[in-house]
């Protein structure tokens, strides 16, 4: 249960809100690099944190993320012509560079320098890995570039996708740190999904339906350990890192690639669910990459030409009760990503947390909310930089290990939970 004012604080991310200001401290994924595939390609509408923006790549390969609307008469620059080093409004020819600086106002004498007085809001857009990242906060406090492992390994070792989720970011992110739902909602996929099946660890998942949990604070967020019984009195641990505000990783299975997510607010009732898969030490196989492109694992199939899932709320997520009865899926919805999305969207655009009845095993979620609230308030009240901004906090991994019963995962797995270049993920 959460009081309404705290729910509002955590879920509202527009300009001037406490959580919105906090999100603006970070480099966040804005677009897939494939959305701006070449110089002078068509611009792309982007909405982040309730701000309507436009991304484009100019004639010299520079990326920009600027206010969507022309300063002259408010026309959407999505209709603009991307050419000769800038984006020109087709209405009266005003032209902007990637920073949002107006560089031409054709109706005014060039010598007047009038165009220099016109500047659209602009944010940096940098390519790291398959992702274009932006920082929408104060340029004076711009943090170092992101160093997440999935984005910094060689291109052949990583794959990233995104999907539109029609709910607030927080209820989506909370699914990413809620290990206990896997046993139920995703039970069918553990047996069939090409990016999950076959791992020894799956047997432990299926053999112990009442996992125990341990939640430990980390510098950047949390580690959430789910403990199940293994052989000889040992424990099988699945350890999920959460880095503030919205990065989560799924504990690995066998030698399958490791996956995880970013949950980035579009506005208060929509978010981008970013999903990545990578292998720290080897290229993804052709079969793995094809499975990801085909929407298996944490990815999804799309409505053609969009990043909206093919199974979405307009078609009731292609609910298949017969497949549910046959035991192929637990909820009747196909695919891990859409199994999550269907339930999280069903909560409503912003779930009313005053009505929920959390139990002890929800402590990962309770702690994450607590830390988010404290960090947002500390930033608002004292200007304190929140956890997760420091690239050192980003060098985490998930892990799946078998440990003797007397060992604390956070100590025993200290090295496993760090990025170690050239060293494989710790997995069972």
């Amino acid at each position, binding site marked *: 249960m959460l009081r309404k004012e705290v729910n509002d604080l955590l879920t509202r991310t527009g300009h001037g809100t406490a959580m919105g200001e906090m999100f603006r401290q970070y480099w966040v994924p804005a677009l897939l690099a494939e959305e701006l595939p070449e110089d002078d390609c068509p611009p792309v509408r982007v909405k982040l944190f309730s701000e309507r923006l436009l991304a484009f790549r100019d004639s010299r390969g520079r990326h920009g993320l600027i206010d969507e609307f022309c300063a002259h008469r408010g026309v959407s620059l999505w209709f603009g012509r991307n050419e000769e080093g800038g984006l020109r409004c087709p209405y009266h020819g005003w032209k902007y560079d990637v920073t949002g600086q107006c560089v031409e106002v054709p109706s005014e004498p060039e010598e007047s320098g009038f165009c220099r007085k016109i500047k659209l809001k602009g944010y940096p857009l940098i390519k790291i890995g398959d992702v274009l990242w932006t920082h929408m906060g104060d340029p004076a406090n711009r943090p170092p570039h992101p160093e997440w492992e999935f984005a910094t390994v060689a291109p052949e070792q990583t794959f990233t996708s995104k999907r539109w989720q029609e709910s607030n970011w927080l209820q989506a992110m909370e699914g990413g740190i809620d290990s206990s739902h896997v046993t139920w909602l995703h039970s069918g996929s553990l047996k069939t999904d090409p990016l999950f099946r076959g791992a020894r660890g799956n047997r432990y998942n299926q053999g112990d339906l009442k996992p*125990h949990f341990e939640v430990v604070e980390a510098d950047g967020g949390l580690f959430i350990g789910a403990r199940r019984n293994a052989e000889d009195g040992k424990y099988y641990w699945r350890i999920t890192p959460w880095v503030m505000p919205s990065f989560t990783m799924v504990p690995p299975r066998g030698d399958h690639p490791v996956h995880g997510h970013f949950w980035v607010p579009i506005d208060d009732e929509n978010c981008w669910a970013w999903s990545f898969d990578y292998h720290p030490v080897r290229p993804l196989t052709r079969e793995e990459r094809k499975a990801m492109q085909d929407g298996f694992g944490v990815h999804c199939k799309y409505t053609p030409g969009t990043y909206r899932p093919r199974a979405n709320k307009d078609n009731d997520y292609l609910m298949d009760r*017969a497949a549910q009865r046959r035991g192929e899926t637990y909820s009747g919805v196909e695919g891990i990503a859409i199994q999550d999305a269907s339930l999280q969207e069903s909560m409503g655009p912003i779930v009313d947390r005053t009505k929920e009845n959390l139990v002890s095993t929800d402590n990962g979620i309770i702690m994450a909310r607590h830390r988010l609230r404290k960090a947002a308030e500390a930033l608002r009240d004292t200007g304190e930089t929140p956890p997760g901004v420091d690239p050192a906090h980003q060098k985490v991994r998930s892990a799946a290990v078998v440990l003797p019963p007397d060992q604390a995962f956070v100590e025993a797995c200290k090295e496993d939970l760090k990025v170690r270049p050239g060293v494989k993920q710790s997995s069972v």
Partner: protein
Amino acid sequence: MKMPTLLGDCAHAATAAEARFRIDYPNSKTRASRVIALDNEAARMMPHLAADDWAGAHFLTYARTDSAPGIEALKMDATLEASDGTRSKLSRELDHADVVVMIASGGEAAEAAGVIGTACSVRAIMTAGLIVSADRTDPAVESAVRALRPHAAVLVVASDADYVPAMLRALRA
């Protein structure tokens, strides 16, 4: 045979407008939570916590075991003390309890965790362990984790004492 669904039912149901029609009523009864400090530092948090307004929580401190070694689990008992000095039996506190939250702060918690955890286990009462320490590298934290792990379905190590009331509020204690 696959049953047809009306396309778009989910789209309609998940709107903010439809959220207005969610039935507004109390969907849970008051929980009986027992919050028990296992060591002296944790005990010092209890008066402050108990002074707040709670739904049905009792705030207690483990005083001593009342069980001889080797006694059968169902007969295990202990004495607990409230902030006003009132003493009660663990067995009485566990009557009708829904959850027991054990709080340690890096002191000696093994005996208390063992007695309370066993008493909860035989009564099928949910247990949670919360270790509060500003320094999570303190060896005492590791020792408390080891003591609580066999007896807590959920174990949390928190650096911030504010987490205790936050967690209890979230659990409708």
